[in-house]
């Protein structure tokens, strides 16, 4: 970060995170929020800022696989941990089952809430591969969508669960589109 004053520079801490599998680090002031670290320092702008008051879930990221609000975490607080953002969902050009679900079921309109919704859905299916509609609605209850009315978001997550279940039944080599793969 550009220095604001020597005094503030003196407060800076080395923050080092694994973001979507890659080691990323920077020296930042302790007051820097995780969402600003991700958007400004790492230039990963798929993580959105909606309310900035811990209420909407647009800023959701996974911290060691668990969904949290990155506007309500300090970057220093999660130094050393693994962060997943929406940019980490696709494997190269191949969409993840969750992304395919949102695509197929029309799970978004403006798309502002979508990164958070897809990350919450991804985390849900990790520990509950076959959730009920009620469990899906519970999981996304901290994420607000102003457009869809939630019906298609629920369907999208169910669709993703079905794709994953299919993949377990008939394991086949990962279809990785040209130029894809991580």
């Amino acid at each position: 970060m550009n220095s604001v004053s020597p005094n503030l520079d003196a407060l800076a801490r080395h923050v080092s995170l694994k973001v979507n599998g890659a080691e990323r680090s920077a020296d930042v002031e302790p007051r820097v929020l995780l969402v600003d670290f991700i958007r400004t320092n790492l230039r990963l702008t798929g993580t959105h800022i909606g309310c900035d008051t811990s209420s909407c879930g647009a800023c959701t990221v996974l911290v060691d696989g668990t969904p949290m609000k990155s506007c309500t975490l300090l970057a220093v607080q999660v130094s050393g941990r693994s962060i997943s953002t929406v940019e980490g969902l696709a494997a190269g050009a191949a969409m993840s089952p969750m992304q395919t679900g949102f695509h197929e079921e029309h799970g978004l309109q403006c798309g502002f809430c979508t990164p958070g919704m897809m990350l919450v859905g991804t985390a849900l299916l990790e520990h509950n591969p076959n959730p009920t509609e009620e469990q899906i609605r519970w999981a996304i209850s901290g994420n607000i969508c102003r457009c869809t009315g939630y019906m298609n978001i629920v369907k999208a997550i169910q669709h993703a669960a079905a794709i994953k279940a299919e993949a377990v039944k008939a394991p086949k080599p990962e279809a990785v589109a040209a130029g894809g793969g991580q």
Partner: protein
Amino acid sequence: MFPAAFDYRAPSSLAEAVDILRQRGEEAKVMAGGQSLIPLLKLRFSQPALVVDIGRLPNLAGVERKDGHLRVGALTRHVQVESNTDLRTLCPILPEAAHWIADPLIRNQGTVGGSVCHADPQGDWGSVMLALDADFVARSESGERTIKAADFFQGPFTTALRPDEVLTEIRIPLAAHSAGAYNKLERKVGDFATVAVAVQVEMNGDKIAKAGIGLTSVGDRNLKARDAEKSLAGKQPTDEAIAEAARLAAAAAEPKADVRGSAEFKRDIVRVFVQRGLKTAVARARGGQ
């Protein structure tokens, strides 16, 4: 929004944490999950010179049974209480209340200890701990002391903790034939309670040996409805006894009108929830649920 500048320490042991607080407690803020503190820092309602992040301290998270009580580590996340299946029979009010707190994302990071130390009059854990007659264990450089839940909450966002102290655990007595219930009215997920009521009963045969009742969002702190509690001791849980306790608890509430409802409305919800909570708690304590 971002906070005013502060210095940051993340001690790796409790001894180091209390040493930092001994030296700089007056100008410092402890941070557990940050789910209440970070919003306050962002709004600049709180501008500490130093944030002491205890989030990485070992052995302070988790719920365990020990010598007739439950030990809830201060860093236990709300979600750990919510998803603990043993607690559903051992102390059902805990997972029931956890389920109502904030939303799943905040429950993944916010802690039980942080919640009681924040002492929001609209917070849920305070009422639960008052109903359970829990003890709060605080550590400082000079040693450990235990504070009764009833003495812990001193006013809005004010507790009996000193600036050099860290809350380390909450001890909940576990009596046989006891159970509780938490009822909460909220406008939507993530909203604080319009009104919520925590009820815990211990049965002795067909009589109530002891009752605990805590009220959320109807006072300048979480309130303990003492007259209502006393009225139940030694009584059979008849409709009349329950109605009388509910009336006393409603009288003890100090609700204020706001966007969530009028004072009369909130007082009446207290009455209804005490009644409902007592019936559920008695049924659970008798093994009905």
